[in-house]
């Protein structure tokens, strides 16, 4: 076999093969991500009416419009509230599930699969199902009545609709992130845990403090970042279950963007709102990367 050094030139044919292999992925990413992103940035600087093909530049006025929209900032506040609650709970809950289901017993395998079902079910299907769960005669009330809790019409209450959606999403995303933690946990060699056992690390708390947490710091970071990005992009569940209501109690940025584009035909403002959201997510992600400087152990 030929020895390849770092700077050695690869033959033209080999280069071509390499490019051909990545081409399909690049095409898909290019068309649906890169092009879409750049195009929407361009649209955000235009007055854009797709139905009458009237397009002309308007400078930053779309941004001014969005920035002065009380509803947009209100939706952003909701997104932050949602992120704070959901990311915190799901990050801990997923970790808890992972530690709980890390055993290699048939029972744990079975329960792990059941817990995982919500994570692989389409969000639209789950949302439709949960409209019933949260309804006045729904499953949730049927349970709560036995505990003496007064039944609520969850999705039609300005107080409870948003927490209900949060609850639904924790229910579906925690098992998804559980898989990431499980992968991390199972990559810890068993001899290390046995050695720890001989060293006197004997209860769950010590195992967590000295091993699971420090060894899974990177996974935690990853789960938090993905959780935040996912939370900022909350859409399907709200759109299907409450459409931002009752009142504006579940209004989130993507509902705002959707409504601007497809209800008010204001594509320029929708694009500007998306771009602002993109910048906020970018800043949040970079900030976290800074905060946790050294996270990998191996």
């Amino acid at each position, binding site marked *: 076999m030929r020895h390849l050094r770092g700077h050695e030139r690869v033959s033209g044919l080999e280069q071509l093969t390499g490019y051909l292999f990545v081409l399909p992925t690049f095409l898909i990413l290019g068309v649906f991500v890169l092009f879409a992103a750049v195009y929407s940035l361009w649209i955000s600087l235009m007055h854009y009416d797709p139905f009458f093909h009237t397009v002309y530049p308007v400078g930053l006025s779309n941004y001014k419009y969005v920035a002065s929209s009380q509803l947009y900032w209100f939706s952003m506040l909701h997104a932050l509230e949602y992120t704070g609650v959901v990311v915190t709970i799901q990050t801990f809950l997923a970790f808890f599930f992972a530690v709980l289901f890390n055993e290699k017993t*048939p029972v744990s395998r079975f329960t792990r699969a059941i817990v995982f079902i919500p994570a692989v079910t389409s969000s639209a299907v789950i949302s439709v199902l949960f409209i019933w769960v949260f309804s006045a005669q729904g499953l949730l009330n049927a349970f709560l009545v036995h505990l003496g809790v007064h039944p609520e019409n969850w999705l039609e209450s300005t107080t409870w609709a948003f927490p209900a959606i949060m609850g639904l999403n924790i229910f579906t995303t925690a098992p998804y992130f559980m898989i990431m933690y499980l992968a991390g946990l199972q990559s810890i*060699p068993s*001899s*290390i845990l*046995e*050695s*720890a*056992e*001989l*060293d*006197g*690390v*004997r209860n769950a708390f*010590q195992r967590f403090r*000295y*091993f699971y947490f*420090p*060894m899974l710091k990177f996974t935690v970071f990853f789960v938090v970042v993905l959780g935040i990005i996912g939370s900022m992009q909350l859409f399907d569940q709200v759109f299907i279950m409450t459409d931002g209501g009752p009142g504006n109690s579940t209004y989130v940025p993507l509902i705002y963007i959707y409504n601007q584009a497809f209800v008010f035909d204001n594509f320029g403002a929708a694009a500007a709102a998306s771009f602002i959201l993109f910048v906020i997510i970018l800043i949040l992600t970079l900030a976290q990367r800074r905060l946790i400087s050294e996270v990998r*152990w*191996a």
Partner: protein
Amino acid sequence: MKGQEIVAARNINLEVKDGELFVLLGPSGCGKTTLLRIIAGLVEPDEGEVLIDGKVMNGVYPSDRNVAMVFQNYALYPHMSVYDNIALNMRVRRIPREEVDRRVREVADTLRITELLNHRPKELSGGQAQRVALARAMVRNPRVYLMDEPLSNLDAKLRVEMRAELKRLHRMVDAPIIYVTHDQVEAMTLGDRIAVMDKGVIQQIGSPIELYENPKNTFVASFLGTPPMNIVSAEELVGVDGLKALSPPGSLSGLSVGFRPGDVAIGDGPLSFDVEVEYAELLGDEVLIHAKRGSTRLVIRAASHTYAGQTSLRVRLDPAKLYWFNTEGEAIRQG
């Protein structure tokens, strides 16, 4: 859903004395590691008792048994510095910080790893990682050291060095060391006593020289010594002049004759027979001749100058160095 139960070790009865380096020797899968893990408390035996200092340890939590274990892959904690690796067991016991520091530095000094204390395990070489693993065991001042193939991940040169290091360490500690290995050279050079295990059963216990000179069965005979002892069925040697006179009373059928490669010489005489040479390995001043007698392969160790590349040889056995084994492979003691 329950899988087939496998008995990894059965009817094991052994006693390890203070200050002794006791080797559990056997091929992989013979149950030696399981036995070690039972002593450590990582596995509870289905039956039987483990005693340390006369106290029953069954049901006692691993860390309360005051045993230290060195794992084959070292099992260093990858996310902690060398210092923290060594200090962890004292930290969880809430030993005062100054005391922890003193003991970590003391043991690091003994094992010459002081300059590595701030490193992470991934920055260490195999030999350094090995020393850290030993330091982590030593710092606890354990009642028993358990070592599971501690040298098998090292290259040949380093292994010889670490063997010497282990001997030095052994002289410094009073506690017994129970040492698991599949490498008979390691067992012979390190062990005060060796227990040879096969298929979960202890075949023989004794000092290295006892096992080498008086193997109890063909397994022990062929496991100790490089190259291993030749074991030839007596039927292959029918007609060899003088053999019957040396054999145990009774028929030769079913018996086997054992002799070490160095106890065969090239040449004619009493107890001699012909072999076909398959190939020879020249090792410098000696040569290992791999030969065949009938369907049995044997190895002959001879001085290089006595072998000139012949494809068939006449060799003779040393009458004082013959071992006899019965149909079950057990040694027949004579005289």
